């Protein structure tokens, strides 16, 4: 299982922590408040009941009827006084009938006085019983208001607890984000570097914990940049040092070749072989130097390019009629020189390895423009299709003197420079089809 990211872990930890703290505080607050309120209520009820009992006793002694004695008592908070004389109950109201009172409480009350919390018909009551001469005085106090208050308070505390948890989560998320800013910067910097922006450097955050990371990154970028610059210089020198003698050799060979009509047939044949190999070497050298230079900080300059017009130009350069270019004009924003190199290499490849370029189809697909080059060859072996973009890979049928097999590799390199894609498949015409997908807007 993939573990959660740092950001999530920090967020969750913060949430759990604040939730627990809030729950403990809320729980104890609730317990204390509920105990305090219940005790207070009980004490008040006992005081009330004692006062009422004394008032009833005085009234009875003065000769009043039991019902009268009870009726004169003030009703506070819906309290219900009751009197048992012998086996007969007297009460002024009938909210709680006497037969629902627990017997054990009454027995204990008759002896020494008692109190109990009971539920009668789903409602909470506090019942206080105390002996009054030979009779029993009972007073029932409804606890609904107190319970409602406690419930409300309890829910309030639950809400506060949940809120605290959410706040903790938010805080965790925020802290994690703040903590990860330098990490994100590091990641973005590394990506930019990988994308070829060798001037990428991280700023000093002024934080002794983070600056060493930024410094390490900057040093690495510096080293990479220096190394690439060195390699580029080397490649440029190699290029120059190889091109000059190659120019001399092929120039001299061209001169020799012009003289073959005046030569003995034997000599002419030798020169012919020489000329062919020199051309092959020259072509290969140009291609190799081109491919070795690619990817090294290639400058991209975008402008609107009519893909169809460019394809027609490439086809004409191969000595073919541009009638074979089919499809609508399609303008993309890209680097025309790279795209030209892509098309040129694919077209040349079709000409030299695919028995000739047969059709070029432009298809406007909205986000991209697809250009398909169909050749007149026997089609491509699917096993070779993936490898055709590797340098020096050619079809088995390819003429060994036709080229080094670098054309498709060069096409791919140039395509990558402009975020285009190249793929090889089968043409509906029977041969191989090379398709270039060009994004409408070049992503930088």
């Amino acid at each position: 299982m993939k573990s959660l990211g740092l950001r999530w872990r920090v967020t969750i930890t913060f949430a759990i922590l604040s939730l627990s703290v809030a729950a403990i505080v809320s729980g104890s607050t609730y317990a204390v408040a509920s105990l305090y309120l219940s005790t207070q209520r009980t004490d008040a009820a006992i005081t009330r009941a004692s006062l009422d009992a004394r008032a009833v006793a005085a009234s009875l002694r003065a000769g009043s009827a039991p019902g009268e004695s009870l009726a004169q008592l003030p009703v506070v908070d819906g309290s219900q006084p009751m009197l048992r004389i012998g086996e007969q109950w007297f009460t002024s109201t009938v909210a709680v009938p006497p037969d629902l009172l627990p017997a054990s409480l009454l027995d204990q009350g008759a002896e020494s006085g008692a109190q109990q919390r009971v539920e009668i018909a789903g409602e909470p009551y506090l019942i206080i019983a105390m002996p009054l001469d030979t009779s029993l005085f009972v007073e029932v106090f409804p606890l609904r208001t107190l319970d409602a208050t406690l419930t409300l308070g309890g829910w309030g505390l639950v809400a506060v607890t949940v809120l605290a948890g959410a706040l903790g989560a938010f805080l965790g998320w925020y802290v994690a984000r703040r903590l990860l800013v330098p990490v994100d910067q590091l990641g973005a910097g590394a990506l930019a570097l990988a994308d070829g922006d060798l001037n990428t450097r991280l700023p000093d955050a002024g934080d002794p914990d983070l600056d060493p990371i930024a410094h390490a990154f900057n040093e690495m970028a510096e080293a990479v940049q220096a190394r690439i610059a060195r390699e580029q210089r080397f490649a440029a020198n190699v290029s120059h040092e190889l091109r000059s003698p190659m120019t001399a050799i092929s120039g001299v060979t061209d001169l020799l070749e012009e003289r073959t009509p005046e030569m003995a047939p034997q000599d002419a044949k030798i020169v012919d072989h020489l000329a062919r190999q020199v051309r092959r070497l020259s072509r290969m050298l140009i291609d190799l130097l081109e491919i070795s230079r690619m990817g090294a900080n290639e400058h991209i300059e975008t402008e609107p390019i009519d893909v169809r017009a460019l394809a027609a130009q490439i086809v004409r350069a191969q000595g073919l009629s541009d009638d074979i270019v089919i499809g609508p004009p399609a303008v993309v924003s890209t680097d025309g020189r790279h795209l030209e190199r892509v098309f040129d290499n694919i077209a040349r490849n079709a000409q030299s390895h695919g028995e000739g370029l047969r059709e070029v189809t432009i298809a406007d697909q909205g986000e991209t423009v697809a250009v398909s080059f169909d050749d007149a060859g026997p089609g491509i072996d699917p096993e070779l299709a993936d490898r055709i973009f590797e340098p020096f890979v050619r079809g088995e049928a390819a003429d060994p003197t036709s080229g080094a097999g670098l054309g498709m590799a060069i096409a791919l390199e140039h395509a990558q420079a402009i975020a285009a894609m190249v793929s090889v498949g089968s043409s509906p015409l029977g041969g191989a089809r090379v398709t270039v997908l060009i994004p409408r807007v070049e992503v930088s």
Partner: protein
Amino acid sequence: MLRMMKTALVVEDDPTIRMVLRTNLENDGLRVLEAETAEAALVTVQDDMPDIVLVDLRLPGIHGFDLVRSLRANSEVPIIIVTANTDSHDVVAGLEAGADDYVTKPFVTKELMARIRRQLRRPLTESGAEEGSVLQCGPLELHQDTCEVRRDGIKVPVSRIEFDVLQALMGAQGRVLSRDYLLRTVWGYSNAGDGRVVDNLIYRLRGKIESDPSRPELLLTIRGFGYRMKA
């Protein structure tokens, strides 16, 4: 100048490449001057102004760029850079210094000779223009018979290739000509070429014919397609 034989100056430090170029140019009926260094080339042009100069960029001593710049400062002679430097910025720098075309080594002899011939082309024999015909565009007049360009009646000095580009654009009467078309018809390219060769020449041309080259009113860029003259 009533000189029958045209002269080419080859500035190149590699003796074999010099020999190859000399032989090909002589086969084409040109007189050839050689210089191994830019310094020698500058001395040569003082005595004998050539009709075309081929310059290698990486020369011992003064760099090819500087040679091109000082040649261009004093004349409209066609300059072709023949270089093993293929780096983008070197190419641009060479063109900006004033070269009319560039060919990278190793070159195909036929292609190079075709380009040289195009730079040396005689205007009257190949332009196919009616005698005395004048193309007009705003304050600009292009006299096809005398190979003159005038702005508000005042003669503007243009090089051979600049004249050809202007003639093609003015002859197109406001139609857009692509860079590829211009490379093939004016520069004599047979393969796809580098559009920057055209861009750079247009830039130079604007400096000569526009009243404010940074805001062209006559020679307009159609981005992504090419160039056209104001109709």
